[in-house]
């Protein structure tokens, strides 16, 4: 309703301007070419700032009247409660749309101003900016939901945090494949989450905050489900994080398999990391600490639990390939698809370049680099583009302003670019001046390695060059241990017989107190995670599947059924406990049934939520006795009207 918008104008204007400018600055992280000519891969600052601004916007919209103390003045308006509840949400949408318009334009102008280049034909970064900014929509919706929920302020803050984590995981998971997010995918996921949360916020906004009344049934269903899902999902993710940390630490505590004094055995690090000490099959220390060099490690790769808590900004397809600086205060930028630009910083110009006077695109997969000149000017280097797959080598001719092909002498084929350090260089370049002059500014020299020979650059041409050969130390033993078993805590490692040593076999399990402690810690987190996710993980997660927040390696694929059942038991005890508590404080049947089911499915976190939400104060029913008649009464003047 337009009339209600009148009272919102001050904060709408404030947030549009502040948010637009702030986010505009955040979006101007990169220089003009990286941002708008090539296209950025990720806009980290913009993402986090957009999310923060979104949450603040949502909370401000809902709480504006509470901050000003005009809540009751507003409630006097003869407006339907639906319109009243929707009004702040509509205002939020207006502000968000304004940001979507202002920020890209502001960023373009800002970047162009700082880079000194105003070229309207370049606008490559707009989809990335808009897509990254889409995170402000669900963030705003989260702010609205948390501000509007009829619960104590600290529970609302907690809900805001858990919802942020939950939705970030969800959106990242949906939008990204192989670590690359699609613009439309990310935007669509954001909008979908925002729409659901806005609807919930609109529902909450119609409820009255009243700590002395229990939640009406619809509020309990919506609010309860939101709380349980948000907290449950977050606990699953954070629990998984803690679980993997604990299990990985336990694994790290395990002794290493080493070769020592003609036998294969186990050894652990001491507190002083330079010494190791041998230990027996029970992981107990035997013998004295010995220097690290006495031991030769035998590698094995045990199953680790990966860190999967990825709730970050969207990473788009990488357009930026390479960038080098040229001699005359210019830069060369290369796009992934082979297009190259030269940016003249002094004259604020940008123009396309490429192979030959026609400025053809470079082949894909090439990289830019330098090759040092061994000619008369020792400080000179040439910019080259080299592609190991195509075998093509190009040199950037700065006077001509484009790339030219470089051919190796004697029909040799290009292999790679090599580097040699000052101390190691023992060149044999014949008529070239002593190498001492070459190392005035740089302590390494880069040269071209061909199939047959090596070459250095001289006056734009390649000449033969003899790089030193470095002696490599003998490689440590190449034997590896073979891991049997996919469990991160209990597995067997077998080292085959080699070099005259007998074969070795050890079963790793938590044996020492420290290992048991960490293993126990991990199992504790496993037990408090929602039984629903644990059960599905146990039944459905194959050991080979890629890890995600739901996967618990301790029980995946049916391992450690006892741990799974322990988790069920804990949830069951929690459900029974909450049933008794709710009976005792006089909660309604619906409340009791809801929370018992939630506790059975989602575990201890639901029990905690039930305790926080269904307080005794809400359900208290003090003695309601009718008041005595007033001491002095006159006859009522109201007539009975027959309806």
């Amino acid at each position, binding site marked *: *309703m337009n009339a209600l918008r009148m009272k919102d104008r001050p904060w709408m204007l404030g947030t549009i301007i502040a948010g637009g400018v702030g986010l505009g600055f955040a979006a101007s992280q990169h220089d003009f070419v990286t941002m708008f000519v090539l296209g950025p891969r990720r806009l980290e600052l913009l993402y986090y700032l957009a999310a923060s601004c979104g949450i603040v916007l949502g909370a401000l919209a809902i709480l504006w009247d509470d901050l*000003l103390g005009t809540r009751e003045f507003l*409630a006097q*308006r*003869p407006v339907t409660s639906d319109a009243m509840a929707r009004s702040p949400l509509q205002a939020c949408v207006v502000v968000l749309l304004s940001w979507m318009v202002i920020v890209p334009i502001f960023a373009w102008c800002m970047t162009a101003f700082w880079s000194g280049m105003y070229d309207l034909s370049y606008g490559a970064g707009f989809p990335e900016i808009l897509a990254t900014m889409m995170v402000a929509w669900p963030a705003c919706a989260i702010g609205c939901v948390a501000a509007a929920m009829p619960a104590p302020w600290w529970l609302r803050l907690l809900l805001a945090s858990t919802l942020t984590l939950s939705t970030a995981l969800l959106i990242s998971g949906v939008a990204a494949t192989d670590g690359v997010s699609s613009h439309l995918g990310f935007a669509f996921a954001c909008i979908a989450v925002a729409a659901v949360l806005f609807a919930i916020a609109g529902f909450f906004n119609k409820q*009255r905050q009243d700590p002395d009344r229990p939640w009406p049934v619809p509020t309990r269903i919506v609010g309860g489900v939101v709380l349980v899902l948000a907290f449950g999902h977050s606990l699953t993710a954070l629990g998984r994080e803690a679980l993997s940390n604990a299990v990985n630490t336990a694994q790290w505590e395990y002794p290493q398999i080493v070769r020592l004094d003609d036998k294969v055995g186990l050894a652990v690090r001491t507190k002083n990391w330079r010494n190791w000490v041998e230990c027996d099959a029970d992981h107990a220390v035997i013998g004295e600490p010995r220097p690290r060099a006495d031991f030769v490690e035998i590698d094995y790769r045990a199953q680790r639990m990966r860190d999967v808590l990825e709730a970050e900004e969207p990473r788009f397809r990488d357009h930026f390939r390479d960038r080098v600086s040229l001699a005359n205060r210019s830069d060369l930028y290369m796009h992934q698809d082979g297009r190259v630009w030269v940016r003249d910083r002094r004259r604020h110009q940008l123009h396309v370049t490429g192979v030959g006077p026609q400025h053809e695109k470079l082949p894909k997969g090439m990289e830019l680099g330098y090759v040092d000149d061994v000619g008369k000017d020792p400080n000179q280097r040439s910019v080259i583009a080299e592609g190991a797959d195509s075998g093509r080598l190009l040199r950037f001719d700065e006077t001509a302003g484009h790339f030219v092909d470089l051919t190796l002498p004697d029909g040799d084929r290009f292999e790679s670019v090599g580097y040699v350090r000052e101390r190691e260089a023992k060149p044999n370049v014949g008529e070239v001046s002593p190498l001492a002059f070459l190392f005035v500014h740089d302590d390494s020299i880069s040269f071209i390695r061909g199939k047959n020979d090596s070459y250095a650059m001289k006056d734009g041409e390649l000449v033969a060059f003899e790089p030193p050969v470095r002696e490599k130390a003998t490689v440590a033993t190449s034997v590896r241990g073979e891991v049997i078993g996919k469990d991160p805590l209990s597995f067997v490692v077998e080292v085959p017989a080699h070099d005259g040593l007998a074969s070795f076999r050890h079963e790793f399990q938590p044996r020492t107190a420290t290992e048991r402690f960490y293993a126990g810690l991990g199992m504790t987190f496993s037990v408090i995670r929602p039984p629903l996710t644990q059960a599905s993980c146990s039944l459905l997660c194959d050991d080979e599947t890629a890890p995600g927040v739901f996967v618990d390696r301790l029980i995946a694929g049916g391992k450690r059924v006892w741990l799974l059942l322990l988790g069920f038991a804990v949830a069951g005890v929690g459900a029974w406990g909450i049933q008794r508590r709710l009976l005792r404080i006089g909660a309604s049947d619906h409340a009791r049934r809801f929370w018992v089911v939630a506790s059975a499915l989602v575990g201890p976190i639901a029990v905690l939520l039930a305790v926080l939400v269904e307080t005794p104060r809400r359900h208290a029913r003090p003695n309601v006795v009718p008041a005595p008649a007033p001491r*002095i009464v006159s006859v009522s003047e109201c007539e*009975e009207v027959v309806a």
Partner: protein
Amino acid sequence: MSSAVVTFDGVHRWFGKSHVLRGLSFEVAPGQVYALLGRNGAGKTTALRILLGFLAPLAGSAHVLGRDCTDLLPEQRGRIGYVGEEHRLYPTMTVQQAVNFEAATRSTFRKDFALEAAKRCGLRSGQRVPFLSRGQRAQLSLILAVASGPDLLICDDPALGLDVVMRREFLDVMIDLLADTGCTVLFSSHFLSDVERVADRVGILHEGALLVDARLDDLKQRVRKCIWVPNGDAKPPVGDNVLRVGARRQGFDLTLLDATEAMFADLAKSGELSPPEAPSLEDLFLDITGPEQPGMLREPIEQFLSKTGGA
């Protein structure tokens, strides 16, 4: 169904452990001016907030304009004008914008009337609300509430903190409203002299329930105060007629309800009796809600007398 504009029916409300309203019941007839009085913390503001739908009663029900207060529709809200204790308006608005806001959200609002009235009170259109004095804000609040021609005007201690002149002007606006429209008024106030002028009916709220729910004229006619110095061992009267017995240096202050001539004659015989007079509303309020009220059946009169040492 009653024709009452406002009905409270056994309303209970508690906040945590404190039981603020204990079975509040009263009615306000159409066209009446009802004054809800009570000490600070007696529950007046809570009762009015329940009436306006900001709080829900935890037992009992309240109805306004025929509708349950927890379920008010825009129609009812449009017919109710509210002036609060703090006169909260949007601090970002000017006087003109506040009037515009009210006009935009209420269809019956008379904008010219409101601006006219504001000008008469000395308010300029461009003044921002936070820069108005308390009295000016109160006047603006009242104008905004009244200019839409409400059927029911609810005021929660509107004259608090205003000077005498402002209070009289407030009263004038209310009287104009009553004279022009048949508006019903429910207000609470600490200024009992104003209440005496303007109220038809008075309700005295004490610790969550009504002690008095009567017409002002009735109160004046039925309640009598006198000073009585007893002879010898004569005890002060007890019973339903006695509202309060207060000890004096010599004798007692008696507040009596529906006292007969015979009673006065008896008292005059057994001691020295001052001429009975009707107490002002302020005196009545003090007697009823102040401490030491053996007559209000707090404690037996014997216990009270033994504490004060008798005559």
